[in-house]
Structures are given as C-alpha cells and as structure tokens.
C-alpha cells in the first residue's frame, strides 16, 4: 500500500469520532431503554461492528450516574464487559465491583453479599453486559443469584438485564442454554421478557444510510468544502452489502463498514487536494475493503510517512 502524496500547505486530515445516533442506535438504545424502564430481561444480538459498544457507552453516559460527597451514589445503569477467558464466577463479580470505583480487596464469600448491598445502595436499575457471548454458565448463575437476592427482602428491587452479544448467522446466543431442562435455566428463562426475550438488532438499510452520509458531510465540511456524499448512497449500500462484508446475507450495512469506507475515501480525497470524493476514490476503497481485504502487504525499506488522523 503506497501512501498518497499530501497536498502541500494542507494540515493533516482529522478524523472525527463523534457518536452518531443512527437508525441502528435508535433501535438498539430503544431496547435498552425498555429494559431499564420495565426492568425486563433481554438477550440482544447484533452482528460485529454494528455499534453496540458505542451505543451502550452513550446510553450509560446519559443515564444520570453520579457520586455525591454526601455519600449518595446513583448508578441506574450498570454496564460492564463480560470477562474474557475467565470461567469462574469471581471474574464477573470483580467486573461488576470495578464499575463502582475503587473497592478494597475482600474474600469472595464477602464480595457476593457486598455486591448485593452496593447494587441496592447505588440504585442500580438495569445491568447491561457487553460481549455477553463470552459469559459462561457460572456467570449466568451468579447473575441470577444477585438479582434474586436484590428482589428479595429487605431490598425488594427488581432490575433489568440486557445481555448484549455479537452473533453470526441464525444462532441466537443463550437461546439453547436457556431452553435446557435444568431448573436453573428454566428459572432464568422465566425471568426473560415475555414479548421480546431474544432480539436481533439489524443494521442499516439504504434509506437509513442517507442521513448518516448527510451527517458525515456536515462533520467533514470544514476539510472538504464541496463534499456531497448522499449521491453515492445507493452505490455505497451495494458495495457494503456484498456477501463478503455481509456473510449472513442480512442485506444490511454495519456502521463499522460504512465509517471505514467513508473516512478512508475522505482521507484519500483530502490527500489528493480535492474538495469532494469521486467515484474513482470510493471505488478504490470499496475494492480494497471487499476484494483485497485479506491482501498481505509487503513492508520493506523506509516506512511510509502516515498522516495523523
């Protein structure tokens, strides 16, 4: 891959990382909101790169969590990432504890009951676990135990639970597990929402891509004054819904693919000194993403200078 020449006198291309409230995010955050309000339990799945983690982060930041120096702490939404390569329940317990801040060490037996106390005293109303596909059965059992203890006296607090997982194909995470005959899973299944226990949040349609491209135009207007991305929405959708990028054949486009295509094309256009992208640049990037995505690059000699951003 050769680095394109930088137009003289232009500052480096600046990439924007703002969270965009896309159609996917509205659907996804709508489900999280529902779980929060109704204290319902859901398994929410979406393909990798949809924007689940960003959506959870944004939802969490808007949930009104605070710590007051009078001792009051409010954490209505508790979000964590599922522990990786750690099958023991302690790993999930530690991840849950860490979300509250600094917790001096304590024996696991004590931490179990401490977690229930702190979940209640911080007013936790919904637990959202990202990358939930990594959860083990022991973790799920601990979640049930904690939520059951919270629901019992003296706390009597019912809390929502969202297991947000990446999925592929028609396999819905946990569906088979919860359908198992064990009492634990039957109890777990009983706690799931009646109407929407397992949800798959779909990516973007062609119509939904258009407003996103409009937002990108606004974001990068200062760097590419004549930017007009909307006219390419159909073409972009066709490229990004290619079976290579959409192996499940959902006919939808993920935000990750869309952002990669647009920012790479904009960077190239900027480096070439133009004020807009054209079909050639977009086509080159799309080709790189679709046809040459697994291409091995030989690096030799001096490393090419790469712009920051």
């Amino acid at each position: 891959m050769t680095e394109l020449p930088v137009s003289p006198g232009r500052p480096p291309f600046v990439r924007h990382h703002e969270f965009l409230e896309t159609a996917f995010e509205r659907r996804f955050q709508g489900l999280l909101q529902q779980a929060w309000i109704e204290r319902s339990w859901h398994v929410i799945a979406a393909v990798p790169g949809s924007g689940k983690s960003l959506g959870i982060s944004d939802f969490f930041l808007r949930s009104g969590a605070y710590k007051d120096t009078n001792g009051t702490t409010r954490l209505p939404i508790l979000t964590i990432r599922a522990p990786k390569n750690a099958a023991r329940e302690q790993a999930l317990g530690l991840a849950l504890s860490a979300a509250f801040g600094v917790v001096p060490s304590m024996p696991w037996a004590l931490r179990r009951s401490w977690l229930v106390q702190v979940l209640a005293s911080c007013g936790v109303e919904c637990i959202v676990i990202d990358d939930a596909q990594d959860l083990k059965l022991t973790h799920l059992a601990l979640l049930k135990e904690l939520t059951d203890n919270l629901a019992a006296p003296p706390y009597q607090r019912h809390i929502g639970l969202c297991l947000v997982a990446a999925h592929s194909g028609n396999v819905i995470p946990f569906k088979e597990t919860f359908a198992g005959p064990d009492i634990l899973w039957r109890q777990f299944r009983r706690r799931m929402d009646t109407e929407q226990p397992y949800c798959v949040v779909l990516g973007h349609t062609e119509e939904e891509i258009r407003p996103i491209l409009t937002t990108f135009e606004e974001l990068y207007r200062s760097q590419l004054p004549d930017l007009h991305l909307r006219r390419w929405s159909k073409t972009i959708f066709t490229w990004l819904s290619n079976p290579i990028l959409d192996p499940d054949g959902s006919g939808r486009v993920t935000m990750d693919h869309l952002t990669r295509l647009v920012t790479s094309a904009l960077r190239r256009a900027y480096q070439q000194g133009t004020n807009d992208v054209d079909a050639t640049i977009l086509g080159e990037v799309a080709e790189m993403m679709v046809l040459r995505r697994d291409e091995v690059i030989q690096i030799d000699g001096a490393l090419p200078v790469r712009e920051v951003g």
Partner: protein
Amino acid sequence: MPQITRDQVGWLSTFPHVAAPLPDEWIAGLLLRCDEMNHRESGTIWRYLLRSTIHPGFGPGSPFIVVPESILESLTHLLMISTERLLSTTYACELARLYAPAHPHAEHLLGHRRGVTIPPLLKKSIGNRANATVVGFHICPICIAQARLLRRAALLPLLKYCPTHHVAFHAHCTCGCPLILFSRRKPPFRCFTCGLDWAQLPHLQPSPGEMRLESDLWDLYELFLEQGTPELKASALSLIRQYLKTHQPLTLKLVSGRTLFGFTADLNQLSLGYVIDLLVSMGISPKEIISKQTM
C-alpha cells in the same frame, strides 16, 4: 454539593460511596464513615491506605492528630476532595502554626508518648484488631447518633465531656470492653465484643464543677487552636513562670492528676495539652493571655 459524574476519570478512582468531612470531623471518623457507607467492615479503608502508601514512621497506634502527606494525598483521590479539607480533619495546621518552625507532630498536642499500651484483653482478641488502638480514644454518643461523627475535639487531652453536647465521652462499652477505633470483621461504630452501637451508650451529664472545668479547658483550647502562634504560647508560658515566681508552691496538683514539683523544662518543647493543664491548674484565663500578649 460537588458531584462526580460517570464521564469523569474520578468515577473509577474513587470509592463507590464518597464522603466529604463534616465540620470538625476527625480523620479517623471520616474513614469509619466511609467504611459504613461502603458496607465494609471497620477499618477497611484505613488498612487499604496503609497498604497502598509509603508512610515511614506511621502506622498502627497512630493517634491520627497529624497524618502523613502520602496518606492524605491518596485519600484526596479516593474521595475527590481537596487536601485543605482533609487537613482540617487533623490538627496539623494548628500545631504547625503554634510550634513553627518545627514540623507538626502528635507529641505537640499529647506530649511524649511512652509507646502504645495494648490492654491484655485486646492482645488475646481475634486477629489484630488491637492494631488500631488509639490511646485515650473516646466518643460522644450523641455525635455518633446524630451524624456518625467523631469530632477532632475528642482528641484533646483532659477533656472528659463533649464540648458540643455536654455529655461524657465514653472510652468503654457498657459491657466493659474498651472501644476500639477499627476492629476487624466488625461493622463500624460498634463494640467489637457485644456489637452495641456506640450511639446507644448512655448520656452522662457533668456536675456543675466538672462543667466549669470543661468550659475553662475548652476556652483555652479554642484560643490556642484558633488563634495560636508561638508568641501567644510565649505569653502563656510567661504567665506560668510569673505564677510560679509569685506563689512559689512546693508542689502543684494539676488537673490531669500529675504533680508539678519544679519547672525547668525548655518551655517551647511543652505539649499544648501540658501547657493547658498548667494554665487551668493555675487559674490563668484566655483573657489574661491575650492581654499579656498585647502588652
């Protein structure tokens, strides 16, 4: 009230529940309150601070009158409060002003300590709960009941009654066991033996004579701790010398129960507790000290 929101870095570097010091709160009381708010056993945060900082010459048995900077700094991050507010939970600033240019030290208030004596009962007790035995530790049950408050004033030598509520300080539980500041595996603010909440200890009123004595002691402490300077202390010591010259007592029985036979010590090395013991025993009032300083 200042708040920490989730998008701030402070969220993850503070305890789940954070507390700011109450007026006149003692740092050890603040730590106990944090333990209680965070559903932890008594002394958890204290032990965490001891483990996570370097503090040469400080540790178990400390009277918490002056606390090392490393511990204060660690606590400022854990509670997201200013160093000034934390310093106000010790007597470091007051003693620094009074004993300038010397570095403030607990001995400036309490006098020379002959090591921490741990009662035999505590030596035998489970674990090392006696680690946090503070000599003369006592509490006002009303302060505890109202705000889970351990006042700095309870540290002042000779005071036997709470200057705010005028009830006796308790150093022992009704079961007879001494009150331990930090006891392992026990909830904060409770007797480590019978589990009685310190707030439930009886309210014992002082006699009129005791009331007068407490008032005299408190007035002098207020003067030295709020307006104290080396000059003010020099004026007080000058009055003490003058008293001894005029009255030439063979022996003088002090309020603390000690007996004064002679007065040859380096006056600047006397602890504030001892100076106030002398002043009250000799009947020297704050007014006289101020007028002496003015002269």
